[in-house]
Structures are given as C-alpha cells and as structure tokens.
C-alpha cells in the first residue's frame, strides 16, 4: 500500500506541490520569525552583557528603566573602591536622547535603537568582560573631546580630528567637541544601530547631570576570588538607604527585560501572519485532497475491490499527506531562513542594524517547522482521507463514481452553529470582562471563519446564481457555461473561495481599524488642539529644557506650555507619567472629570480616564507607580479625558516629576501660543530657534495630525502585506482547483472544442469561472471583515477611538483586486484547457 501512495504522489507531484506551497509559506513565516527573533536576541547579548559591572550601585528602585534625575553621590565611589572585596569602583554617567548630527546636519539613526550618551569608562563589565574598547585614537580627556562608535562615525561621515555636533537633552542643547577616538565592543558585538557618544566623565556629568558630582550608577569590580554575591553583601553594608546594590547578572537581566518584551511583541505579530497563512493553507490542502480523492475514487474503489481494507485506503491518503508535510516543512525551513534575512534587511532600513550578526538557527526552529507542516497537512487531509474509506468496492465497476459527501444542509447547520458560537465568543472577548480576552477573540474569529466556510456552499448559492445570470447576460453562451461550472460543485467552489475570504476578512478588519483610528485621531486633534505650534522630538525622545526658554523670548510668542513625560509602570502596566504645571493645564484645555483638581505636592497623581478604568481605581485610591525613584505609592487625585496634545496618561506635579518620581529634567513636548502674529511668520521664527537641533520640529495642527496618524498608516501598510500574502495563497488555491477541474472535464472541453468553441472562448470561460470564485471569496471576506471591524471598533469605543470609519474605497479596491486575482489565476489553467488536443480529449475517459 505504501508503494501505491508514493506512486500516486509522484503521478500528481505538480498539483500537490502547488497546494503544499501555502504550507511552505506558512512554515516559512514561522521559521523566519523564530530565526529572526533568536538572531535579534543574540545580537543584543554583548550590549547587555556589557551593561553592568560585577556589582551595580544605583538609586533605590531605579530598576532597568531609563536613567532618571536621581543619582549616586560622587563620594560613594571611593568608599566602594576601598571595600576588601572590590578591585575598583567606577562611576558611570548615561543618558539617552544624545544625537550625533551628521555632515548634512541630520541626526544619525532615528526610530528604534536609542541614541546613547555616556561618560567614558574602562571599567570591566560582569566577570571581567571587556565592554567598549578604543579601537582607534584615544579616550576622551577634556570637555572638547568625544569618542563615537565606529559605525556611527562612519554613518555620520566623521574621522578623527573632525568637529562633531551633538544634540543633548541637557541644559546645553548643542555641543561641538572634537572626535578623538573610535570605540567598539571588544568581542565584536554590535550596537545594532544604536548610536554612542562618550565624553570624559566630568564632561558627561556637566552635560547630563547638570554638573553635579554624581553618577547615574557605580560599577564595583570584584577582586580576584570574590564572587558577585559576596561583593554585593559587602556593598550593601556601606551604602545609604536611598541606594541599592544588585549583582551584575541581575542588573544585566533587568536591563534586557524591556527589550525582551518588545521582541516578544514583534514575534507575536509575525506569528499571527504565519497563523493566517497556515489556516488558509490548510483549507487549500483540504480542497486539493478532496478533489484528488474524488478523481481517484474509481482507482481507490478498485483497490478496495482487490482486497484493500477501508483502513488501508484511508492510511494511504494520510501517508501522502505526511510525505507532503515533510516536504513542505523542508521547503518552508529553507524559505524561512531567507525570509529571516529579508526581515533583517527590512529592519536595517528602519535603523536596527544587524549586519555582522550571523543568523541564529536554534533547535526549536526546525522542530517547529516540521511539526507545524506535518500537523497541518495531515489534519487537513484527514477529512478527505476518512471519506475515501467510505467508497464501496462495487463502485470500481460503475461508470460514474460519486464520493459520498456530507449533505449541504448538515454543513449549513454545523457551519451556522459554529459561526454563532464564534460570534458569541467574539462578543464576550470584546465586550465582556474575561481573562485571556485575546485568545477568546482569536478563537471566536477562527470559529466564525470556519463556520462560514462550512456553510458557504449553500450561502454562496445566491451569489453564484447572480454571477451566473450576469455572465449569461454579458458573455452569452460562454458566460452560461462558466456560470454553470461554478454551480456544478458548490463545495469545491466555496472551499476555493474561502482562502481569499479569510485573507480579506482579516485585511478588511484591519483596514477598518486603521481608518477608524486615523479618523479618531483627526477628530480628537480637531476638537482639542490648542496653541499655534507643537514642538517635539521627531524620534519621540526627550530634549533640552533650554529650548523652551529660548522660545519664550521669540518675538510673537505669548506663552509656551511645557510637557514632560516618560515611561513608567502603573500596577505593572506601561503608562506615560508626565508633568504639566497647573496654569499650563488650563492653557492646554485638559478636561478634568468629576470635580478632579490638578495634582499637587509629591504624592498626588492624576490619571487618564482609560488608565483609571483599566486599573479599576477611583479618586482617593492608592496606586503603585514604578518610576526611576522606585516602587512608590501615589494617591489618585482625579481623572481627565484623553487629549491628543497631552500624551501622558498619568500626570504628577512638575516638582514631583523630577523630585520624588526621579525622572530626568528633560522636556518632551512644547505647545507654543502666539500673540496673534501671522502663523507663517511665527513658524519661521520658531524654526530659526530650532535650526541647530535637527531632531526637533514645530508642527501646526495639520502637521501634528499627520505625524500622529503615521503609526496608524504604518499599521495599514502591514495590512497590505497581510493582504498580499492572502492574495498569493488565494491565487494558488484557485489555480489548483481550476487546473484540477480542467483535467477532470477534459472530455467535455474536447467536446466543446469539437462543436466549435474557439480557444479564446474557452479561455474566457475558464477565466469567468475563476473570477466568479475569487469575487465570491472577496465578497464573503469583505462582509465578514466589515462585521469584525465594526464590532471590534464598537468594543474599543471607550478606549478613545470614538469614530468608526469604514473605508469603502479601500474595500472596493479589494474587490477589484479579487477580480484581478481571478483573471490571473485563470491564466495557466485556461491555457492548459485551450491547448488540449481535441481528438485526445474526446477519447479520454
């Protein structure tokens, strides 16, 4: 029997390969994602391994977050160096938002990897590991010296001796030191596109810590034979209560935690793509196997007549699926590694530079590839395989063999039940208060899609009937033939269309989400934009407070409202904790809810409505904030309505922000109010002030709205990628089904040709059939997409996305694309049909 399976596979390799291709795509996404994220993880190893000394002393509760305003007093260093277990102690100064300006006056790098500034230190990292070392030139020694990492110097176009403009978030917004050295990781590791500017420690203190004799943290290096644990015990005995000491391993781990979360998110996102490809691919496999089994039913009946057991016949089909799965896994593995390379290249474009880091292929990668491929293929082939078992041996002797198939009515019932259950799960997940809401929603969507697919042979009848009527009217006989062909086997037509349906349903949902988010942002900005110009760092980073001071003095500027904010955690969830002075709050038009008042003192926090809801707290309650100042309890003073010019989702007083909370003294956003001077004149004057700070930009309402919409538009781009993937798989599915149908109908095609159907007419017939399938899939998909999208956006209404916008134009484009997909998919099968030799076709049994 095994031989029979393999023979039969070899006899149909092209068709089967085509259906495997969807699995190959799905698997390659899985593999690509795993390889890429492993590589990414590995590439950060040297950065994090070098990010801590044997023991790190830092302000208590600082954790692995960004450096804040709280520091370690300078005199601690000598005390620590004198410990018996310490070989040395070195003060470190670090900051982000330190941009190297290139020869074209543009900042190097950008989104993603940080722009780092630090005090130069040759202190060894954990376990004596050498961190950054000077590879050319010398270490910085005075206020006029700077050292860059080799790659950044390269990108900016500077060599030793050049003057390097650098933008800092400190009091001195711009400095222009001389490049005296180039640094790199001793072990060949890379900064992954982050930029690094290192100054001598005193200069760094001046620039980033306001000139205090203090350090962001202190590294204590263990003497020979002293363990991290022993050393940390000694350190803890001598330091003050407002400082903490942790082992280097611990510090490195906590430094890496946020990044790991970000990579995990990316991984999830990419795996969703893989999941979609696999689900759609599974449909394709089911369909292909169903058709192949139907075509071979006489052969299979013969096997049964010759004494093969029901089980043997079923197993032989499953063996075919297994072989295909292994093949798909292998091809997917190869393609996935290429995909990982492509992803790396894509991320390099966005600034995350992984060059020099070889791809990491962990053991789990091939394991995942093969198990996913085999599981999906075999599971998909199971239904057709079981059906073959029901072929009666006597059918081998009959002329026309029909495979027993489940009744359409039963499929309708099963499908509708599944869809209703899925819909219920979807609603519960979106509107209810469940744990694992994401899984519930995902499962619900999948159930609805499967249900509609199961019911679609009947659901699609009216649509196909309409298409047939239209074809008849427009294309005459050719149209009639095509229309009848699509109705001939509604199961097959619907199953083929479902590939496209799923892809378009998801793309449609995302389109609606994107359009609604865009429209909501627009409306919010329109409703609440105040002032004339908003000044922000285009990379989202902090900038120097000196900018606000300079702007106040500009002629025509009446007021400048200053906003600060930074990342923190509230009850474990990320929030932006910000500070705005009381008068500026009025100026910004922040709407305080239910008799709330501005936060005062250093214990009160004002929460955005949504944040308060999520944390389930009311004014007067106590919340725990994890800020650079440590894990602290704050009292909720009140809540406020979301406001696009106030990105912070929690507000404290400016004093508490840099005081108790311990954030750095850096601004994030300025809102400039003019005194009535013409907007364009005012704009020009502001731009003049910002001229030497290339990362800062002033935007009016319209520009600000555009910038705010940008991430949404990027999301929409991702949707198009998803759509593209779905289209590719759908084309494959339709090609496959049509090719198989043409083979099945060889004799009929021959007859039509014999009675005078021209090649062109025949091609048109196949094309129309294909278009009917693809449009069916697209219509079902778009309808489902609109349903999913509207339901989802309704559920998100109270999260600040108040406008539900259905991009009809875009959806219409999907339909047009579907027609094109249909035409495209028909090319090969139509050509094949047209090329059939009439005589042989007629003689074919």
């Amino acid at each position, binding site marked *: 029997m095994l031989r029979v399976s393999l023979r039969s596979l070899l006899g149909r390799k092209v068709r089967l390969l085509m259906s495997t291709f969807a699995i190959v795509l799905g698997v390659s996404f899985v593999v690509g994602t795993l390889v890429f994220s492993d590589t990414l993880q590995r590439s950060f190893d040297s950065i994090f391994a070098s990010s801590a000394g044997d023991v790190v002393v830092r302000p208590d509760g600082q954790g692995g977050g960004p450096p804040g305003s709280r520091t370690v007093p300078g005199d601690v260093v000598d005390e620590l160096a004198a410990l018996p277990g310490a070989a040395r102690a070195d003060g470190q100064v670090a900051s982000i938002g330190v941009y190297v300006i290139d020869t074209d006056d543009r900042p190097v790098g950008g989104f993603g990897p940080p722009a780092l500034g630090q005090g130069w230190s040759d202190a060894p990292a954990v376990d004596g590991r050498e961190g950054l070392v000077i590879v050319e030139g010398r270490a910085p020694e005075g206020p006029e010296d700077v050292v860059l990492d080799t790659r950044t110097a390269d990108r900016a176009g500077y060599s030793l001796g050049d003057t390097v403009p650098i933008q800092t978030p400190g009091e001195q917004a711009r400095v222009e030191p001389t490049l005296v050295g180039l640094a790199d990781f001793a072990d060949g590791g890379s900064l992954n596109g982050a930029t690094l500017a290192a100054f001598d420690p005193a200069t760094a203190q001046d620039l980033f810590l306001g000139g205090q004799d203090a350090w962001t943290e202190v590294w204590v290096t263990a003497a020979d034979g002293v363990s991290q644990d022993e050393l940390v015990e000694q350190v803890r005995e001598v330091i003050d209560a407002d400082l903490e000491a942790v082992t280097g391993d611990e510090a490195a781990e906590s430094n890496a935690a946020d990044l790991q979360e970000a990579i995990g998110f990316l991984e999830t996102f990419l795996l969703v793509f893989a999941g979609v490809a696999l689900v759609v691919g599974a449909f394709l496999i089911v369909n292909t196997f169903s058709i192949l089994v139907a075509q071979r039913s006489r052969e299979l009946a013969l096997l049964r007549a010759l004494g093969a057991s029901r089980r043997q016949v079923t197993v032989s089909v499953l063996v075919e699926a297994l072989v295909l799965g292994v093949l798909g896994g292998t091809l997917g593995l190869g393609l996935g590694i290429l995909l990982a390379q492509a992803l790396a290249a894509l991320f390099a474009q966005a600034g995350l530079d992984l060059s020099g880091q070889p791809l990491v292929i962990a053991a789990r990668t091939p394991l995942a590839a093969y198990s996913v491929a085999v599981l999906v293929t075999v599971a998909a082939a199971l239904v057709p395989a079981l059906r073959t078992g029901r072929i009666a041996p006597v059918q081998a002797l009959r002329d026309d063999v029909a495979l027993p198939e489940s009744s359409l009515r039963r499929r309708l019932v099963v499908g509708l039940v599944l869809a209703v259950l899925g819909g219920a799960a979807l609603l519960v997940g979106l509107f209810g208060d469940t744990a694992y809401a994401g899984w519930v929603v995902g499962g619900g969507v999948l159930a609805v899609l499967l249900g509609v697919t199961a019911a679609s042979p009947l659901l699609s009848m009216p649509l196909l009937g309409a298409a047939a009527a239209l074809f008849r009217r427009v294309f005459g006989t050719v149209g009639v033939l095509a229309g009848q062909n699509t109705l001939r086997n509604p199961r097959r037509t619907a199953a083929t269309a479902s590939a496209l349906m799923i892809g378009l349903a998801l793309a449609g949902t995302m389109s609606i989400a994107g359009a609604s988010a865009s429209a909501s942002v627009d409306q919010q900005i329109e409703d609440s934009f105040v002032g004339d110009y908003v000044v922000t760092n285009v990379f989202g980073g902090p900038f120097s407070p000196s900018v606000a001071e300079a702007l106040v003095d500009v002629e025509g500027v009446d007021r400048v409202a200053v906003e600060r904010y930074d990342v923190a955690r509230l009850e474990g969830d990320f929030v932006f904790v910000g500070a705005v002075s009381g008068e500026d709050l009025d100026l910004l038009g922040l709407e305080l809810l239910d008799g709330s008042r501005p936060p005062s003192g250093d214990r009160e926090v004002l929460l955005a409505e949504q944040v308060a809801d999520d944390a389930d707290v009311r004014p007067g309650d106590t919340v725990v904030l994890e800020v650079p100042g440590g894990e602290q309890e704050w009292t909720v003073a009140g809540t406020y309505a979301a406001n696009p010019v106030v990105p912070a989702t929690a507000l404290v007083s400016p004093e508490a922000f840099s005081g108790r909370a311990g954030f750095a003294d850096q601004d994030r956003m300025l809102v400039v109010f003019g005194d009535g001077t013409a907007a364009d004149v005012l704009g020009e004057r502001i731009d003049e002030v910002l001229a030497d700070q290339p990362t800062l930009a002033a935007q009016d309402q319209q520009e600000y709205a555009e910038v705010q919409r940008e991430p949404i538009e990027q999301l929409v781009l991702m949707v198009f990628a998803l759509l593209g993937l779905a289209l590719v798989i759908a084309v494959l599915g339709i090609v496959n089904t049509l090719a198989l149908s043409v083979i099945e109908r060889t004799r009929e095609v021959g007859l039509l040709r014999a009675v005078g*159907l021209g*090649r062109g007419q025949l091609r048109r017939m196949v094309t129309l059939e294909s278009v009917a399938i693809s449009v069916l899939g697209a219509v079902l998909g778009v309808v489902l997409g609109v349903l999913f999208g509207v339901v989802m956006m309704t559920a998100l209404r109270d999260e600040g996305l108040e406008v539900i916008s259905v991009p009809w134009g875009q959806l219409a484009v999907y339909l047009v694309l579907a027609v094109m997909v249909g035409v495209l998919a028909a090319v090969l099968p139509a050509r094949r049909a047209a090329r059939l030799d009439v005589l042989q076709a007629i003689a074919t049994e």
Partner: protein
Amino acid sequence: MTVAASVRDLTKIYGSGQTEVRALDGVSLDIGAGEFTAVMGPSGSGKSTLMHCCAALDTADSGSVRIGDVELTGLKDKALTALRRDEIGFVFQSFNLVPTLTAKENVLLPLAIAGRRPDAEWFDQVVATVGLADRLGHRPNQLSGGQQQRVAVARALVSRPRIVFADEPTGNLDSRSGAEVLSLLRRSVDEHQQTIVMVTHDPVAAAYTDRVVFLADGRVVDELRAPDRDAVLEVMTRMTEAAAPRDDASAQEA
C-alpha cells in the same frame, strides 16, 4: 450528384521506421450531398482516422480534404474551429453532452457558441424529429442513453451543417435505442437532405445507409450501394478472409 466532401490521396502515418503504421494510405473518396454514407472496416483499418481528418479534428500528412469548397489542408486552428462550428455536426459514441446544461441548451450549444440565432421553426422541427419535446428541460443525467444520443443528434442537426459525422453512434446503446437513433438519422437524410457520414462496425447499422465504403489497411477496398445486412456481411467476410494471411500484422496494428 453534388459532392459535400471530397478526399484525395489522403495519407496519415503514425510512428516511423519499424513501428510505422499507415493509418491512411492514399484514400480517395467523394461524399455525395444528401447521402447517408457508412464507413466500415476492421479495427485499425483507418476508418476513425479518416473521419477525424474529414471532420477537421485531425490533420493528415499528405493529400487533401475539402468540405464544400473549402480546402482543409493548411488551415489554422481558428479557421478549423470556425469550420467545425458552422459546417460540421458531430455525434459521438459516448454522447458527450455538457452535463451542466439542459437538453435544450445542449442542442443549441453550437449556435450559441457561434452567436447565431436559432431558427425557431427548424428547431421545433428537429426537436419533433428526435422526439424530445417533453425532455428539453432535463439535464443529461436525467436522460437515458438513447435519449442522450438523440439530444446529440439534434445538436448535430440544428445548425444545418453541410455534413454530419457520426462516430459509432449506436456503440453504447441497446438495440432498441440504437434503432431509434438510426432511423432518426435516416429520416433527417430523407426529409431534410442532410449529408451524414457514419463510422460503424455494425452491419445492421450500415443497412440504414445509402452507401457503404469499406476500408482495410488505410485503403478503400470495396463499396456497396443500397446495402442490406446480408450484403454487408458478405463483403465483411470476404475482407476477413483476404486479411487472414496477414493476421499477425493486423493484430499488431490494432
């Protein structure tokens, strides 16, 4: 007598060298208009090949085929398709109806493909002749074999082709259905002067025709006018005896 189709020195060779088979070996033949002609011969005699070449389904290696005034040799696929559509009707052994279309739609298919309007009167007449008036809305799988073949005959007649080719039209039918189909063909010759060429190996079927042409080894070897079953059988027996010494060769051909 007007000639509906003529064949001159038609040769068709399959394979080459040792395996060479001359399916047609210089056949010349005129088909009279308004005549019912049968082509007979043992398996491998070339009768099917001859019909396929005449019907623009296959091309010969040399020689010429004319349907009416049109020389088929050298025509491209497009012209051949048009010729099949407009000048030729087919009846196949295995009915070959389009399963998705009703009987009526099947009958009208060649006209519909050509984009021609059916002549309503003629259509009614054809339908009446084949006796399917009450079956027009049925699909092929709702019809018996004999009914399906009568639909196929109606399809061949409805476009008033210059010539109808029937390839073993009764091969898949029981004798009663077969007789129905044959008398139907006969009547269309008698009443509508339709030219019909039928390939068959059944002497009973041949007896319905005006003329029987006998083929053996790719050549015309004999001919009968106004044949009856016994006369046909006699010629066939004679041919079998003549072929007996070369039995091995014919067996290979077959």
